[in-house]
């Protein structure tokens, strides 16, 4: 992506406009005066070779690991969608090639449209909720007060509880007749009708989104907090010396410096949310009547309950395509914004 090239050549993606004497553009490479004799030039080129080698050595362990652990699965996952892959294939290895047959079957199924809409709504709603609340909490925790560190760490507790357990607990809390939420809502007279959070077609997706936001908040808070902590104090001091208001400080100091972290959080957030499976399965199984069925849950159903792994993989690849599309569009748009 062009953005990364841009970053590797210059300083941080956003430079504060005023009073930012501390952030500089990188020092140029050791100067090679033009027209010097060849020994100088040769030394320069061997210096570049050593630079190159160093860069690659830093990357090599990671590349080896990624290729070893992901190389085969990525290729296999991609190919599976073009084959007729059933339980027999696992034993015999036979998987006849059927080209786009799986994709056609999957897209023309009656569930697909609903699943696609649900996936988009679920992802957009979850990310919006998680990010906004996460950022607000990260900003809040920047204040200095007793027990700050302890509270911030306790916020990570939802991630320590196995999903099967939190799924069960949320099912009890959201139960229509006896769940804690409905009891609370009825007691405080906010909603006395005992809404069927998990059993009503209009509310199931909302309920599942709420739980996913709950799970995503710690992720957003912690990373954004770390990013906020990395912003040097001097920038804020300089900005306030220049007379910037609170909101202007956020817009001109915090936001540009936070942007690379925000990018990663949003793109990763979308990638993770789009394949969320256990939360939805644990809460509603994709029901009632496909109200909370997403492409990810439908893919799981096709693979592991109907044993048609080819179709399941086709849906999985569609998800990957959507994620990639989002990543490309977002990063392009981000780069354009940075250039402005």
């Amino acid at each position: 992506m062009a953005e990364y090239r841009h970053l590797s050549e210059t300083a941080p993606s956003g430079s504060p406009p005023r009073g930012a004497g501390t952030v500089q553009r990188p020092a140029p490479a050791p100067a090679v005066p033009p027209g010097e004799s060849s020994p100088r030039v040769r030394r320069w080129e061997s210096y570049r070779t050593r630079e190159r080698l160093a860069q690659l050595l830093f990357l090599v362990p990671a590349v080896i690991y990624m290729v070893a652990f992901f190389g085969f699965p990525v290729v296999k996952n991609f190919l599976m969608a073009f084959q007729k892959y059933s339980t027999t294939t696992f034993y015999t290895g036979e998987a006849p090639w059927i080209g786009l047959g799986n994709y056609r079957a999957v897209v023309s199924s009656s569930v697909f449209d609903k699943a696609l809409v649900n996936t988009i709504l679920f992802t957009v709603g979850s990310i919006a909720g998680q990010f906004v609340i996460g950022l607000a909490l990260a900003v809040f925790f920047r204040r200095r007060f007793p027990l700050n560190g302890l509270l911030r760490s306790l916020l990570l507790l939802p991630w320590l509880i196995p999903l099967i357990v939190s799924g069960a607990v949320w099912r009890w809390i959201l139960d229509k007749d006896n769940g804690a939420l409905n009891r609370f809502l009825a007691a405080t007279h906010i909603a006395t009708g005992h809404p069927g959070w998990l059993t009503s077609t209009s509310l199931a997706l909302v309920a599942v989104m709420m739980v996913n936001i709950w799970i995503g908040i710690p992720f957003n808070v912690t990373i954004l907090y770390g990013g906020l902590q990395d912003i040097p104090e001097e920038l804020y001091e300089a900005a306030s010396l220049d007379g910037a208001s609170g909101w202007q400080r956020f817009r001109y100091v915090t936001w540009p410096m936070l942007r690379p972290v925000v990018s990663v959080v949003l793109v990763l957030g979308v990638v993770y949310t789009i394949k969320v499976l256990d939360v939805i399965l644990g809460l509603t199984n994709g029901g009632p009547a496909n109200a909370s069925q997403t492409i990810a849950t439908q893919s799981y159903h096709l693979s592991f309950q109907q044993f048609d792994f080819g179709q399941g993989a086709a849906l999985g690849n569609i998800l990957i395509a959507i994620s990639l599309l989002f990543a490309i569009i977002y990063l392009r748009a981000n780069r354009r914004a940075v250039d402005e």
Partner: protein
Amino acid sequence: MIRSTRSVRAQAVLASMLALPLALSACGGSGGNSGSSSDGTTTLRVLDYYNNDPGKTVWQKAIEACGQEAGVKISREAVPGASLIQKVLQQASSRTLPDVLMLDNPDLQQIAQTGALTPLDTFGINADGFAKGVVDASTYQGKLYGLQPVTNTIGLFYNKDMLAKVGVTPPQTWDELRTAAKKLTSGSTYGLAFSAPANYEGTWQFLPFMWSNGGDEKNIATPQTAQALQLWVDLMVTDKSVSKSALNWTQADVNDQFKAGKAAMMVNGPWQFPVLDADKSLHYAVVKIPAPAAGKPIVAPLGGETWTVPQTGNKDKQAKAAKIVSCLNSDQNQISLGQQNQTIPTKTALLGKFASSNPNMKGFTDQIPTARARTGELGADWPKAATKIYTAFQAALTGQATPTKALEQAQNG
């Protein structure tokens, strides 16, 4: 230019590295061998999903006893229920299937289809004297692949105190069920609870109603099935004697509701006896699931797990494994396993003399001779039909469509 040559070379290196894992996987594995212990006794690997007590210990003892009889040592792996098929497929592709494999009876067809199982007649094992439905589930294309020692089904539990208070007798027909459920619904208590989630557990609960009325899984868009679905719609939507939460309840949740007194009757199975018996203040009894009309036969679904012998390529081990399967299905083992696990023997001759510690078991035992296997008709195509069934009743129960329309839409995809 030097720079472009270098980058081309780098890309070539990267590409060849990508090929490496592909090459490694192509070499494939000959699979691990079951191993023999130092004193020469063979060890057989067993895979099942009785991963929690008390079932785990009960089966451990039974398998080890059979192992001793066959002269082998046992190395057993018990995995969580939902992960069994995943493990079987992983082991099938790496050719490391266990010597003795337990399968949930509706899954046998899929696995037999792959060719990974050995037909049991190779070892001279037959299923004479077993209940017909049980044999159907374990038979693929006319050959017997598995033998099932114990089974279970579902029936109607009712709270004796609550029924006595309202003056209702345990219902025996659908009309009686509706009336009783309506009378028993009051305050925070519902008359009836069943499990109707969007998965195969919901389908399992719907089957006795569908089958008893003449409905069939080959084509669910028939008036008989529509009537069965109409019963559920009447109970839940019209009469409100069943909580809407049933759309998301597992059978365990239904049991919790019944136990807490939030439901006067429930559709559930005998494995709940220990949990219910733990509460001394709860007085319950079991009757058969109500029939559509007086005198009509009730057809209940067959549960339970079947034991198979995968193809491991080692003839000796397979023969010994077959001995273990056969031993687990002996008369003595069927009765002892049934009594310890709250399940029912599958040999029809034993049904008469099988007396569980719980008198309520009779309500279930009586249904076994006429019970039906889920995969009996469609074999490996059952999962698709099962999905259609729960899609249909979920649509009807949430008011998306009338029962007839819902069944049509589900049947035609």
